[in-house]
């Protein structure tokens, strides 16, 4: 049996291999997705983001256990940054999900952001589709909320869960930085710490300022470690899911996301074309040299590279 057939039979290894192939831009893998795309769209995608150390993995672990109790099949994509220097990565999110490893209806995959093209998007999009075809009811995408990736996550998630911890200066930063708009549900983790109420209040106040639709993001205090109020949090996520489905906004949101995805695929392909040309014969190296020596300016250098693909 080939990967495609095995995947349709719910074979874990086939799913795992397909994700690898997609990560490596394998054409055959893309063809499998093309052929099976009609089967996707059933999985509900939850993006989980928040600052490092906020307990995202543990929370994902607990939410998964709740969903497993309801008999749902779960996929988890844990995305961590790739080192820009070596291209390697250490992916450690499984540590927090050890006892899910043996659950036959849970699939956990760690992914590095890899490469300079487009952050987490492309490979993750691929992996989500693979897990969707594999038959997951819910897919969690977990990313460290620094910089680009937490904006990226909106582009693929149906619900964005923002995890915060009390008394971390960066929460306030996050609020200011406009994270408020992307979160559909807030979880204040480690709610036993002092300052949980204050953090909740601050978020609520900010939500007051930004109120513009008929949906208001709930702010839930939980403790992932102590397994407290996880069920309540899950209910809030499901409320958001129901809201999107009942109002028809799920389609709207997915269309919006797909638009971004298509454009980004085009962008990446174009960029690849351009970079292949630019790197050919060390053109980029050459140009950057000259620009640095002030023999040329960056704009002219750009035009030179663009003209290569116009030909």
């Amino acid at each position, binding site marked *: 049996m080939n990967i495609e057939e095995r995947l349709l039979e719910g074979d874990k290894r086939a799913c795992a291999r397909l994700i690898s192939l997609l990560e490596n831009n394998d054409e055959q893998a893309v063809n499998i997705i093309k052929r099976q795309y009609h089967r996707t769209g059933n999985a509900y995608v939850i993006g989980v983001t928040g600052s490092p*150390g906020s307990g995202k993995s*543990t929370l994902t672990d607990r939410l998964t256990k709740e969903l497993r109790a309801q008999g749902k099949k779960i996929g988890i994509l844990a995305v961590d940054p790739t080192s820009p220097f070596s291209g390697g990565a*250490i992916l*450690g999110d499984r*540590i*927090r999900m050890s006892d899910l490893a043996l659950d036959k209806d849970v699939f956990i995959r760690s992914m590095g952001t890899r490469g300079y093209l487009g952050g987490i998007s492309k490979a993750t999009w691929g992996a989500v589709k693979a897990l969707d075809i594999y038959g997951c009811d819910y897919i969690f995408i977990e990313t460290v909320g620094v910089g680009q990736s937490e904006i990226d996550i909106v582009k693929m998630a149906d619900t964005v869960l923002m995890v915060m911890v009390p008394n971390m200066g960066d929460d306030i930063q996050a609020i200011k930085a406009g994270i408020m708009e992307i979160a559909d549900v807030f979880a204040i983790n480690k709610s036993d710490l002092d300052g949980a109420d204050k953090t909740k209040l601050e978020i609520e106040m900010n939500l007051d300022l930004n109120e513009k639709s008929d949906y208001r993001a709930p702010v839930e205090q939980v403790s992932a*470690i*102590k397994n407290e109020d996880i069920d309540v949090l899950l209910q809030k996520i499901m409320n958001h899911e129901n809201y999107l489905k009942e109002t028809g906004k799920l389609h709207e949101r997915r269309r919006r996301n797909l638009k971004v995805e298509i454009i980004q695929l085009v962008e990446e392909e174009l960029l690849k074309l351009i970079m292949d040309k630019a790197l050919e014969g060390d053109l980029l190296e050459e140009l950057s040299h000259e620009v640095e020596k002030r023999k040329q300016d960056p704009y002219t250098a750009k035009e030179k590279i663009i003209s290569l693909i116009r030909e």
Partner: protein
Amino acid sequence: MYEEKKLEQIKSSFKDWDEEVGKQLGKRPEMKEIFATGSDKTVERLYTPLDISELDYEKDLGYPGEYPYTRGVQPTMYRGRFWTMRQYAGFASAEESNNRYKYLLEQGQTGLSVAFDLPTQIGYDSDHALSEGEVGKVGVAIDSLRDMEILFDGIPLDKVSTSMTINAPASVLLAMYIAVAEKQGVTPGQLRGTIQNDILKEYIARGTYIFPVEESMRLITNIFEYCSKEVPQWNTISISGYHIREAGSTAAQEVAFTLADGIAYVDAAIKAGLDVDDFAPRLSFFFNAHNDLLEEVSKYRAARRLWARIMKERFGAKKEKSLQLKFHTQTAGSTLTAQQSDNNIVRVAIQTLAAVLGGTQSLHTNSRDEALALPTEDSVRIALRTQQIVAHESGVIETVDPLAGSYYIESLTNDIEKEAMDYIEKIDNLGGAPKAIEKGFIQKEIQNSAYKYQMQVESLEKIVVGVNKFRIEETEKKELLKVDPHVELMQKKKIERLKSIRDNDKVQNTLDVLKAKAETEENLMPFIIDAVKEYATLGEVCGVLREVFGEYEQSVIL
């Protein structure tokens, strides 16, 4: 320590000398640009009075047995009595370990040190699924009071002092020890020894934790409180830098993180309502001895001074014994090489000297073959003889703190103390050691040092004889100790039998009570003792506590 005028003179003559040497470097260059200690602290070509001009003899060094104890905790040190020569041992079954202990006592060892196997250390019985393959491997398997009775059979517990390397389930093993003693007719008040009981370093470096931080700290303070009343001669904790160093920390980090843990325990006990002078005299420490002799000596001296200052200034301790940092030392397992393993005898000898010149209260010397397997009896004997040679032949014990006053030693002592203080301040700012561990700060600092060291070895910046230099082809087979693979089966059978002959209703009863008490704030020690006396197994007792407390989740930041 020096007159202003004299210092000026030295400053000028030193400058002359330094310039002269500088001129000659062209012809006779030094081997390296930068010289450094084993922990990578930069070392100068020469130390002079200029480097310790700020040192105040009475304030910073004082006399042995007097604050701040830089020169030692006892006034006469080894002129009065040698350190306790204590070899950590224990393997396979209680029966075999009992034989090894009797052998060591016959050989002149003065205290016992019990090593437990990993299932015991993590609170699982030998028949637990996770125990598979681990029973009796790194120490003795103890499942119930029955095993403990065999372990100490024929060893009078009022005569020996026993150190037990046990942490997460320390309360349970101590309870068993008390129960065994009682059967020998020895009262808790007569018992002498130590339990490691240091959970924070388990989270940081050693990994045999069970319960979450808060609950673990409660068990620890329960032990402090119980022992201060019932087992007053017992050292209730051995705050350990040993494993922090083994995990790859520097010498200064070892001091810093160990004392930061110490501060956390003192804080917790005070918060639980204990008076600092009631429990602080029973706190003890456990440090590593690495190869850089002079850095290690400075490390012990710095640790002693810093702890005395912390106890006095930060916690307002009054009793002398509360201010004294007493410590056990073990030579560094991580410096032992599998290659040309007899070379390890020499390393251990240097490390022994470091510990003794640093004023240790007791010492375990590693055996040459420990990078390969558990030590054979021959190897253990050589390790013990190493201590005896240092004690009787080397001459370093004839006077107290013989290296004091060395410009280099004093300067390095200051340096290490300063670096440790800076770390402790950082940890305070993070909310104390437990929080710093939860955030992964301490682990990350250690990992960075470990990685840096590894890279230095690989680039030959640091030489390890026999490993990255002076290598040979080794063909000769070494005789290694083999653990009997039947121990696991035997232990399982013992548990089965025990469960068929004990009074299971009584056992269940005591476990139910323990569970109920765990939900309250009462001291759990008496209830644990009740349970083990009924032959409840270690796994059963820890299982009940697991149900109430939950389990710790590892904090890893790579």
